[in-house]
Structure formats: C-alpha cells, structure tokens
C-alpha cells in the first residue's frame, strides 16, 4: 500500500479530546493525550461555558475554529499546553440540527519537520476559501492554500461541499488541476480526508485532514454511511471507503461491510451520535482512533474514523 506508509513515525496530532455539553457547560468526554499526562490532568479539571475557551468558542460561534497561538488568546489552558509543547489547536463542533452534541479538539505541537494539514474551508458567495488551517512545517503549502479557492465540485473541499459527503482522496500530489498538488507532492502529503461540518446557521464548512507519510495525521481512515437512505431503518452503517497502512484498501467491491450500533467505537458513535476516542482494542492495533459523527439535519448521516 503506497498511499499510506506504515513506518514508525511521530504523529502530526498530539492530543485529541472530546467536550460534551452538560447543562450550560462543556465538560470532558474522553480523550487521547499520549504521554502528556499533565495536560490531560489539567484538561480533566476544566469545563467551558458557551463562548469560553476554544471549545466554548466553537460552540458559541457555531463553526470549526483553528487557533495557532495560545499565548494571549482565549485559550484557557495555555500554561499547561505550553508545558506540554502544544502550540496549536483545532476545534470541530458536532451539531445534530441545532443541538450541539460535542466539540472535538485536536492539539498539535510545532516541529520543523512535521508536515500535514488540518484545514477549515468556508463558503462565501459561491466560492470555498480557506478560513484557517494548521500546517505544521508545511509553510509553502500553507501560503498556496491561502491563495486557493474552490468552486462547487472541484478538489477535495469542493467535492465535500457539493456532495455533502465525507470523501477520502488518494495521491494528492498527482495531477490535480490546482497549484496545491505540486506543493502537496513535494512534502509528501498523499492522502486527504474531507468532511462537511454542518452548523445550525447553514454556512458551508469543509474540514480537510491532509496526511503525510512521515508525520501522519492517521494511518487508517474509514468512512461509514449511516443514512437511512442508504442503509434503511436497520440502524447500522456501511463502510463506503477506507484505507489502512497495514491492511490496504478496506472497501470491498462486492461485499458490504456493516457495523451495528454499539459495535466497537464506530458503533458507539453510531448509536450515540457523539464522537468517540478509543485507545484500546477498538483502535485496530493503533495507539488511538477517533470516530467523528456527521449529521445531516438532525439525522446521523456519516461517521469518519481515523486511526494513528
């Protein structure tokens, strides 16, 4: 499998955490902190009011947010983050219709040779442009991305926008009709997961995770389709695409792979509509995985899962 390389590398993301609403606050709902136990401890003692801190801001502003500097910002755990070497974060709110189900936060640390991209694209006047993104050391790619826009159906963000569906793209560095491809190829960005981030006010947001083999965001990606229009009223979800550094392609042309509610971490996300982080058996042999539900209106439509 040459798209995702199975090599012992540092990951692009250091921390993943879930914040869930409880009353009028967001409280910890699980996370993967790796060796950053002090930051984990600080997080466990924290909760956020609406508008407070990064998760609270994503909740209040009803949009995914990229925060690339903690010092002097609204980020509440700046000292703990600084101590842990964390420098940037992306908050992704999970809405089911108007209801906030959770906020997923990923945190990264700067590194001179850590390449990857977590991008938030927003639609305005019929064009999708970069709202913000975290790129690690991929500075040139970041600059190009800032100058790039997508129309409906074009590229990974434009395709996510027009199809309202998560999409997994391979060979990002090959032949795409935009300048990003060449730059992506140079720094080894080879696989991209794009997903819609629905918000109550209807603004179109597409989140993209572009992973490089050297410092992968993930080494296994899965997209599960849970729409009743696809799977009926069974309550199950069907794997519509997937790729794994160890197992190769996860999709099967002739056989549908299904997951039932509560079956593994994806099944838990399916049943609860909440994001799930698993660091045990559910992580398919990887250190951690996250299953992120995506709703269409109030209905759960898809689950994307990534493993690293």
């Amino acid at each position: 499998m040459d798209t995702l390389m199975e090599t012992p590398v540092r990951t692009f993301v250091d921390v993943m955490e879930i914040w869930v609403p409880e009353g009028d606050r967001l409280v910890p709902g699980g996370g993967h902190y790796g060796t950053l136990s002090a930051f984990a401890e600080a997080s466990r003692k924290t909760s956020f009011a609406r508008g407070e801190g990064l998760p609270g801001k994503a909740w209040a502003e009803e949009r995914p947010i990229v925060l690339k500097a903690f010092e002097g910002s609204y980020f509440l755990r700046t000292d703990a983050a600084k101590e842990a070497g964390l420098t940037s974060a992306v908050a992704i709110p999970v809405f089911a219709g108007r209801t906030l189900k959770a906020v997923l936060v990923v945190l990264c640390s700067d590194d001179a040779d850590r390449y990857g991209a977590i991008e938030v694209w927003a639609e305005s006047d019929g064009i999708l442009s970069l709202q913000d993104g975290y790129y690690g050391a991929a500075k040139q790619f970041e600059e190009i991305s800032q100058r790039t826009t997508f129309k409906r159906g074009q590229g990974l963000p434009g395709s996510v926008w027009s199809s309202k569906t998560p999409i997994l793209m391979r060979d990002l560095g090959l032949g795409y009709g935009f300048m990003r491809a060449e730059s992506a190829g140079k720094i080894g960005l080879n696989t991209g997961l794009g997903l819609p981030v629905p918000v109550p006010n209807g603004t179109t947001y597409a989140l993209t995770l572009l992973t490089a083999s050297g410092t992968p965001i993930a080494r296994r990606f899965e997209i599960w389709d849970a729409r009743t229009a696809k799977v009926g009223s069974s309550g199950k979800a069907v794997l519509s695409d997937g790729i794994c550094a160890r197992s190769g392609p996860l999709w099967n042309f002739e056989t549908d792979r299904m997951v039932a509610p509560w079956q593994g971490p994806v099944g838990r996300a399916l049943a609860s509509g909440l994001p799930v982080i698993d660091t045990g058996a559910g992580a398919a042999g990887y250190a951690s995985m996250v299953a992120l539900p995506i709703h269409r209106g109030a209905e759960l439509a898809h689950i994307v899962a990534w493993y690293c």
Partner: protein
Amino acid sequence: MQKLVVIGAGMASGRLLEHLFDAAPGAFDVTLFNAEPRGNYNRLMLSPVLSGEKSYGEIITHDDDWYAGNTVTCRFGEKIDGIDRARKVVLSAQGETPYDKLIIATGSNPFIIPLPGHTLPGVISYRDLDDTNAMIETSATPGARAVVIGGGLLGLEAAAGLRMRGMEVTVLHNTGHLMERQLDAAAGYLLRRDLEARGINVITQAQTQSIEGNGHVARVMLVDGTELPCELVVMAVGIRPSVQLAKDAGLDVGRAITVDAQMQTSDPDVYALGECVEFAGTLFGLVAPLYDQAKVLAKTLTDQEDAFTVKELATKLKVTGCDLFSAGDFAEGADREDIVFRDPGRGVYKRLVLKDDHLIGAVMYGDTADGSWFFGLIKDATDVSDMRDTLIFGPAYQGGATADPLSAVAALPADAEICGCNGICKGQIVSAIKGGAHTLGDIRATTKASGSCGTCTGLVEQVLAVTLGDDFVMPTSQPVCKCTEFTHEDVRLLIKTKELKSQPAVWQELGWTTPNGCHVCRPAINFYLLADWPLEYQDDPQSRFVNERNHANIQKDGTYSVMPRMWGGITTPTELRAIADAADKYNVPTVKVTGGQRIDLLGVKKEDLPGMWFDLNAAGMVSGHAYSKGLRTVKTCVGTDHCRFGTQDSTGLGIKLEKLLWGSWTPHKVKLAVSGCPRNCAEATCKDVGIICVDSGYQVGVGGAAGMDLKETERLCDVPTEEEALEVTAAFVQIYRENAKYLDRPYKWIAKVGLDWVKERVVDDLENRRALVARFDLSQTIYRKDPWAPLAAKADTFAPLADLTLEAAE
C-alpha cells in the same frame, strides 16, 4: 496438464481463472495474453481512480504474486494477431502459442462517433487505465476544460471525476434526460440537478456537429451553433464487442461472438466470455452476468454441468453523493401500474412498476436503501398483491410512513418568495407566525401576504400548517388533480419561486404522486412552464389537448376544421381564391364564415391536413389558431377607412393587435375586438379584450364574455394613442398569462384577483407595464410562429400521430 490459452486479462477472464484454480488446481497450464501492458484490475473502479478517490494500486485484482502463485504465464502487452484453429495455435508477434482449449475474452471497444475532428489529439474514449491517466494528465493544467460526449453511466462518472480534478466540465447528451436507459425522466432530472450542483454543465438534446482544433482539440461545435471551448473531449457513447479476432478465425459471430449456455463458441475447443459474447441474442456490459459466465465456463472446463442464463440487472452509479438505483423494466404501458413516492425535501424519488401483481421495474433516486429488496422481488417474480399498498415503503414498513404532502413547502428556503404582489418571503411569514399570527387574517394583517390578488393564499396556509403543525387546520381547496394536493395557484407560484423549468422538476419538487402527471394536470403544467420560462422550457406537444397537437379542431365526425388567419378580419381576393381552391381540392363539404370574421373549412380529413396547410401557406396564410388556448381572432369594424362614424383606424389597430399577439399561448382562448366608435359594430364589449375607439383615443375594456356566461367588459383604462392601446393590451395578456389558472377565461380570473389589482399593475405602474410587455415580447420570440409550416412541408410523409399513453382530451 491441458494447455489453456486466454486472450484478454479483464474481469471476466480473471474471475474464470479464480474459479478454475479453486476447482482444479494444477489442471491447466495457463498462458494469459493481454493487449494492455498489465494484468487484471477492477475496470469498474477506474472512475474513482480518475476522481482521486482510489489509487490504481487499490483496484488491482491480480498482482504479479497472484499470477506467479498460480503459475500463469503472463504475456501482457502482447496482442494476438490471429487464431489458427486447424493447428490450435494463437499467433502473435512473438510467434505461435499452442492450446488445447482457447478462451476468448477480448471484451469490447469504445464506440467513437465519426464526427469531423474525432481523430484530433485530445479526443479520447474512456475504457482503460491509459485513458484514465490521459484524463488525469490533462486535468493538471489549471483552468482546463473538458467536454464529455455521452450522458450514460460511464460519461457521467468521467464528468464527475474530471470535475473533482478541477476541470470545467460539460456533458453532452443527445436525448431528453441523462442515463435514459437506466432512469426515467424524474430520476434523470434529480441526477442532473445533483451534477449541476457540482458545477458540471449538462446539455441534453445536444446534437454535436464537429470537433475542431488546430493540431489539438480546441472546441466542440453543436448543431445549434453553440461553441464549447475545451482541451479534452471524452467520448463515452457506448461500446462495441471486440470480435474481429473471432471473426477472422471463422467463428460464428452475430452482434458478438455467439456462445451457448456453456460459453462454447462454434468451435468446441474455443470458448468465449465477457463483453465480446452474444448469448441468446443478448449482449453484456455489466459485471454481474460476466461473473456468472466465468462460473459457468470454469465448470464447463472442469467437466461439471452448469448453464448460463440471462438475469435481471441492477444499475448503480459510482459518483460519490449520487444515490441511484434502477432495475428491470420501467417503461410506461397500458398494462402496467406505477407506484410513486417523492420526498422533495430530501430529493427522494421512488417508482415501482407493477404488471399482473408482479414487480417488474424499480427506479430510485436519493434513497436506495431498499433497492436490493426490490431487485430480489423482480428477480424472483414474487407475487406482491398482498403488499401492494405498502410496497413502496420497503421491507421495514411498519404501517406509519406516509408521504407528507407539505414537504415541498417545508423544504422551501426562508428567502423563497410566497407573495409576489407584496414581495413577502417564507421567512417573513414564519417570523409573523412565531410572533403570534396564527390565522390567514393575522398573516394578511401583519405581512400583507395573500392580501392582494389572493392567489398565494393556499401557499400561505401551507406555511401556517408547516409552522404550526396540528394547531392549524388546513381549509380544503381544490387541487389541480389527483396527482397532487396543490391548487393551480400554488403550483404557479411554486414554479416561479423554486424556478422549476421542466415537467420532471415539477413532478419531483412538488411531490407529484404519479410518474408523469395525468391528462388533467399535464396541459396545465405545460402551459405554466412555457409561460414562465419561455426560453428554458421546451413546449411538450404530448401535454396538449388533441386539437392543439393536431393544429386543427376535431369535429364530432372525426374530421377537422381548418381556419386560416385573416388579420383583423381583412382578406384579399388572392386569399379567397386559395381558400376556395383548397376547399375544392380536398372536397371540403362546408365553408363557413365565423363570428370572428374568418372563413372556416369544415369536414377536412386528417390525412388532408398537411396538404391543405401547405397550399394555404403557399398563398401567404398561416394558422388561425382556432383550436388553441391562445389568441383566436381580433374582430374589427371598418373604422375611419370607410365608415362615416369611425373615430379611429379600428381595422388598422385590430391588424396590429393580431400581428402582435398571434401565436401566444394563454390560459384559455383569448378573443379581441376593436370597434371604431361607440356604436360598437365589432361587438367589442363582450370580448376578453375589447377596444372602443372614441375621438379622444381608445377605451380598453377587459373581461367580457359571450358564451356560457354573458358579461360586458370592464374598463381597464382609456389611452390617447394607438401605441398605448397596443402596449396596455400586450401587458394585460401577459399578466393574464403569468397569473391565471389554466382554463380560466380572463373574466373568471379578474373576478378572483379584482380589476383594481390588474389596473395597479397594467395601468398605474408604467414600469411594471413595460416589464410585462418585455416579457411578452421575449416569449413571442419563441412562440410567434406558424405551427402549420413545419408540418405542411412534410405533407407527403405525414402520418397521424400514434396513440398516446396519456391522451389529453378537451
């Protein structure tokens, strides 16, 4: 060990080898030739490779290790030049290869339309990895444009993939809707909508004239003059079985290589499978029967019994986010029954076709969850009479699901205009409801919506129902027909608000319960669409009453009447001679002068119509539209030219009015008259529009009637000049066209909206009047044409129209 030579390393032969190695490992010494320089890969997944959603590595079915593990001698990139059946060898550039058994699996070749310029570099087919890579390479040029010729499965997958690669893409399809072999018009409409939402330009009814370029493709030209600049042309118009090798070897070849149920050709040592074969008159293009063939042939080669049979097939499109499913036969027919479910809000369309209590076809778009279940019912020929009522809801139906008639209104966005008179959008009405306005009266008082002409009342009530739920009781109103719960007024408004520009769009977005409407709604919808979207909508003759289809009035004995136009009731000796000649030539039994100052030829046989039209056209006369829901006649008196009492040139105005208005389609027939003085010899005061000339100008009256109802016109306005009389009349006809219910004469429509409402828009608001005239003029650029002319020119080949499934009858 038998020597088995296989020509072609595609999916069919690959599956055959898998079965063979499973069933009889080591029994065959296999040599596999392939013209492509690679082994078996999943060709069906090339589209995701093109789009970037799969890599080539992922779609390789058999890699080098697999071939080596099964000791297959691979001769990839080596083309077979011939088969010597007598000596049982195949011939290639590298020499002869002997066989005991030979398998031909040469597949198919893409069909290339021999258009001028089809050999230019940049024109490619879409068949294999090389084609795919060529497309990917072209898409790497920023701003590159592609034209895909063919709106079938392959063409659309190519278009979607190229679009994802960043190209500007246009799809050309030569029929009325996409994938017409797999989808009906409604599903085709939804698919087109989805593709257009991806930025793909779709042109149906497209006739490609040529491909042009200087050394490389630069543009595609259509017959209508449209120029489509492009750097890539993808021809995806179909495939042809690749049979030349078999033909040259003397095997029996029909449309493809003829095989029996054991996949044996006319030579007992030569077998064939895949897209290159013909079995029982059937060709194959989908993978399922190919796999069945592979299974059968493996058994045949290992001396087991099996027989290939043709089965029903289902279709899926591999464009992420487009969910469609079709299976079986979904053509319309008198012996068939349709069950239709639509959910406009979710973009869902399902149609089941039943015959003799069996499901024979299914088309689904947007919700394909039950596709496999329906497919099973079709394949198994299950008697569905016991589940007929709930069948459309699928196997999980629990008795509670029904189509929501309000879903189309619920799906309207907040900025959708509900009340055109006062410019009130759905969001404003919803806000008013949330602010406490819970009745129609409250809404009128707070927003003015439905407070003017009142035609949006039904829609406002539906917004109330959607917003308030059970707290609002919908008044019963008369729907257009049994196909819908919407009234005519609702439909008219929604066609404008939702910009519905085709019949399938109306059926789907307004949740019609029938596949294509019925004889009641189709003429109305056809009119509403052509009136609102004259440029975009194409008039559908199948949705017209029989007289309008035949351009003549059918009489009680089955003959027709023919009435040429006489502008303003004025004729000439030449015209009269032509009419007399036509009456003689075609043995017309009755010639009648009508109340509208025309000459009517009654008793014309249907087969004589084109010839008579031809003769009358030759004399300079056009159809008088005596059969139409449109402008009939403008009756005049002689006016100032001859009459002592005439105040204005009433004849001249009548002629100008008729030349301005003729050909326009209206909700019902429209009759005009112009009288030169208040003595009113032209009887203008009982017409739909009647103008009385007076010394000071022109008195324009509207809404008269002299039929089942008798009614005098009401004064719309007085204008001083002939130009204004023409302008006001055109504006009135246009506002009637845009707003009236189909089959409401103007007097009935005016009674509903009120003359003051009409005056405000036609008389008082000069800007609006001119806008109405401009829209009327625009429509007339399409419709001010003689309908006889094109048919008359074909008089020698004329044949009566075939019986139609949906026979509209007046």
